[in-house]
């Protein structure tokens, strides 16, 4: 990092050693905080200027202004709800609030347990991110214990995770987001656009086989379209790739600090490769299908470039280690982080500001001003510094305590179970696009198939039935729905090439007799140990921060990509990424009144982030609904009307069978 943090009171001396700037330290001063640039982003965008004038929830508003509640009904794997206030006459979104409607309490469940439990319990945080949490957890533990995995163990993780991403991204592109661009949906929301699509040739028909954009849209029709069904079928192969490396997917039982316990042989790798070979062609086709589709949308749907648009603020922990560099030590994290097949770092306003995992970690804070939690900073700060000596905020995950308190429910006060993570007190988003963006700009990656060029990536995908192709991904000029999808589609190739790299490296290791996949470890039974796992989910940034005290978990904090992106407004009045994206989204659908308004543009914007459980989103307009009360009391922890605190409820659940 060649300059100090913009908002945090951390500076660097001439030797590059970080220190706290002033006596006030990390105390929050609203006046000194730079805004994230939301107001300046899209001069003609909808909504943002109205925000300050918007009346409090529940007050009378004009005939054309409607509350829109996007309220998923999820019970097992997590839930996101979204409240928007829309002006149908002026085709604007006036206000947006992102809500996590469930308190799941993993941090509380893990406290006091054997550290090894964290691997299997935290895995249950998500069904589609079915290995990332167990892997991230194992890495946090291997830093704390410490133990270093052997090279084959590292490649098994890399290949299993890249296989899982092929599954994850395919699901999102064809089962979750794809239907938003299908002929059946557009026939209702934008019939003229569909007609144009049917008469527009697809530029890359020679690769994917669809002569017109209309044919692509028909193939995206849910349940019966060719691409929907092919995507579904590809998830089988990709899941099997992940299972071959990790034993089972989701929720593998083979993950341990120090490696994996999978039995890997030459046969395993050949089975893996037979599926990978098919993925090469699938990756080529998917990249061009979405390239053609998004180009069409941008050209023919005026305003689509503003749908889901945000400032170019992105964060990524990086993923896929180089076993020659990775040693599980925090002190060396800058080196092994930069050696990853996806480079970690932070981009602020389109500029790469760091690729250091130390600087990334130091810059992270979580705020709960609009969340159903109590601030914990009234107690003494647990850790003043990182294990490498850098200063830590009291709001950093290693200092965070989870104190549920579902009170003060209103848009002005508290409205979500999500927290507001910020890097350098700035909202961040993440995903396949940030992986590619960071890797491209950093130019740290040295790989025979993936070449970062500063302004993009060249990905050389081997011949299968289709010939070898070099896919070019350019860093886009805007960060919006179209570019998130385009990047995710090309990221299939990136993942396939990580798998291919691993396949080659693993066979070399087998030849050399280096087939060990795990190193034995012991759980320290006394003293204090700390660890952090930096390991991305399909949706991007993921960290697990653990503190172990006398052999049991003292504190465990999980920070997921959807926590970053579904975050509420922070104490500096910066809305969360979904909230900003919704406010910047113009209403482009064709509607006559509230009755036939579907909110598809807001949905497209939010779904482009691939939020957890996006497909569970259904949207309705209801001027009477008090979404705040309805959503919060539908939480899976059985809260009643405020007589029971969250902590009591959780404790009851945990000890119900004792």
């Amino acid at each position: 990092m060649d300059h100090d943090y913009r908002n945090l009171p951390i500076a660097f001396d001439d030797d590059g050693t970080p220190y706290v700037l002033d006596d006030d330290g990390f105390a929050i001063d609203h006046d000194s905080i730079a805004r994230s640039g939301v107001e300046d982003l899209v001069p003609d965008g909808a909504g943002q200027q109205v925000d300050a004038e918007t009346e409090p929830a529940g007050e009378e508003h004009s005939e054309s202004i409607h509350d829109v509640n996007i309220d998923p009904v999820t019970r097992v794997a997590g839930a996101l709800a979204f409240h928007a206030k829309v002006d149908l006459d002026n085709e604007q979104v006036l206000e947006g609030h992102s809500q996590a409607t469930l308190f799941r309490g993993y941090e509380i469940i893990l406290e006091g347990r054997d550290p090894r439990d964290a691997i299997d319990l935290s895995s249950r945080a998500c069904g589609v991110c079915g290995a990332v949490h167990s892997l991230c957890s194992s890495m946090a533990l291997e830093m704390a214990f410490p133990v270093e995995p052997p090279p084959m163990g590292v490649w098994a993780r890399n290949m299993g995770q890249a296989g899982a991403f092929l599954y994850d991204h395919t699901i999102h592109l064809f089962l979750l987001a794809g239907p938003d661009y299908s002929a059946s949906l557009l026939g209702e929301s934008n019939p003229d656009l569909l007609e144009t699509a049917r008469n527009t040739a697809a530029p890359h028909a020679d690769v994917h086989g669809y002569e017109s954009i209309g044919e692509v849209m028909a193939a995206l029709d849910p349940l019966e379209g060719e691409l929907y069904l092919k995507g579904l079928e590809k998830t089988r192969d990709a899941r099997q790739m992940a299972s071959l490396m990790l034993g089972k997917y989701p929720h593998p039982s083979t993950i341990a600090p120090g490696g994996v316990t999978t039995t890997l042989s030459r046969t395993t790798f050949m089975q893996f490769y037979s599926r990978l070979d098919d993925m090469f062609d699938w990756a080529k086709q998917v990249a061009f299908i979405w390239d053609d589709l998004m180009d069409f949308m941008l050209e023919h749907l005026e305003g689509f470039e503003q749908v889901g648009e945000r400032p170019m603020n992105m964060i990524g922990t990086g993923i896929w280690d180089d076993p020659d560099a990775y040693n599980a030590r925090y002190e060396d994290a800058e080196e092994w982080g930069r050696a990853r097949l996806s480079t970690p770092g932070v981009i602020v306003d389109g500029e790469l500001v760091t690729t250091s995992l130390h600087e990334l970690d130091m810059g992270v804070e979580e705020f709960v001003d609009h969340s159903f939690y109590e601030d914990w900073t009234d107690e003494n700060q647990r850790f003043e510094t990182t294990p490498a000596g850098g200063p830590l905020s009291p709001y950093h995950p290693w200092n965070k305590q989870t104190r549920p308190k579902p009170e003060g429910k209103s848009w002005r006060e508290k409205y979500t179970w999500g927290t507001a993570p910020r890097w350098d007190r700035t909202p961040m988003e993440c995903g396949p696009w940030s992986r590619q963006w960071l890797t491209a700009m950093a130019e740290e990656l040295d790989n025979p198939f993936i070449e970062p060029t500063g302004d993009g990536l060249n990905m050389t995908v081997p011949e299968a039935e289709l010939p070898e192709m070099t896919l070019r991904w350019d860093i886009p000029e805007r960060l919006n729905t179209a570019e998130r999808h385009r990047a995710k589609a090309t990221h299939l190739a990136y993942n396939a090439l990580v798998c291919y790299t691993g396949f080659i490296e693993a066979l070399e290791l087998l030849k050399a007799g280096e087939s060990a996949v795990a190193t034995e470890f012991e759980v320290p039974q006394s003293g204090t140990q700390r660890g952090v796992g930096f390991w991305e989910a399909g949706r991007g940034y993921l960290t697990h921060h653990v503190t172990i005290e006398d052999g049991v978990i003292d504190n465990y904090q999980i920070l997921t990509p959807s926590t970053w992106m579904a975050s509420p407004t922070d104490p500096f009045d910066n809305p969360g990424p979904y909230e900003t994206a919704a406010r910047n989204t113009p209403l482009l659908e064709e509607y006559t009144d509230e009755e036939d308004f579907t909110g598809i543009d807001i949905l497209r914007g939010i779904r482009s982030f691939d939020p957890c459980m996006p497909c569970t989103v259904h949207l309705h307009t209801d001027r009477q609904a008090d979404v705040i009360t309805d959503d919060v009391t539908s939480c899976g922890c059985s809260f009643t009307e405020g007589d029971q605190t969250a902590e009591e409820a959780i404790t009851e659940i945990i000890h119900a069978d004792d």
Partner: protein
Amino acid sequence: MTDSDPEPDVDALDQLDGPDEPERYHIRGEHRGAGADTGSLFGNVSEKRDEAAFGTEPGLIAGTREDPMLVAGVGYPLLSDLALGTVLAHRVAEWDLPGVAVADLSHTPVAAYQTVSEGAYRTVLLVGAEKRGGELNDGTPSENPGAIHEYGPDAVAMPEEGLTELVGQSAMGFNTVENVVVVTRALGSFPEDTRVIAVEPAYDSWGMNVDEFSDPVAAALEAVEERLLDALDDALA
């Protein structure tokens, strides 16, 4: 849906040469470390991994996809009574029954559909917990905890709306017996001889062991095993 009373056929056990008391695959607690009152939850499952083709083609933990019969356990480990299908699948796998493939469908309904459709099974027995009434995963009991229901897949009503959303959800979780039936019927089909055997849960939230069953469900386990054996016996005949 139709309910039927269990009529255990003890002889079937002998005919199929399965152990009277199959060894349980799950954790008993001996692994728990001195420094904690808990321990690694899945150690024994990991040990068995070398023998079981977890999640790989054809997604089975016993038998092969050429077998004529499939026992498929739908479940959620660590969600108390919802783990029923998973635990039963591993019990049946340990019986090592000839001609019987076993799948642990503790993943997603879409993956379950793919596993069921991967083979050319003549008979499929789908077993798991099924909550009736109330919301799933909120810790409240089903209408009649421990009740066993047996029915064919056609008895499950297909949703008139929201099928796309349900399939989308089911690619990530929502792993219930009903959703496995709906997704499989939406995307493909079951063999004609398919039976669902479901048990109503008493508790469907966190359990800290794989088989942390409530009393009513624990009491129903033996009857469910007997029904499975009866059904397999019928299929063999």
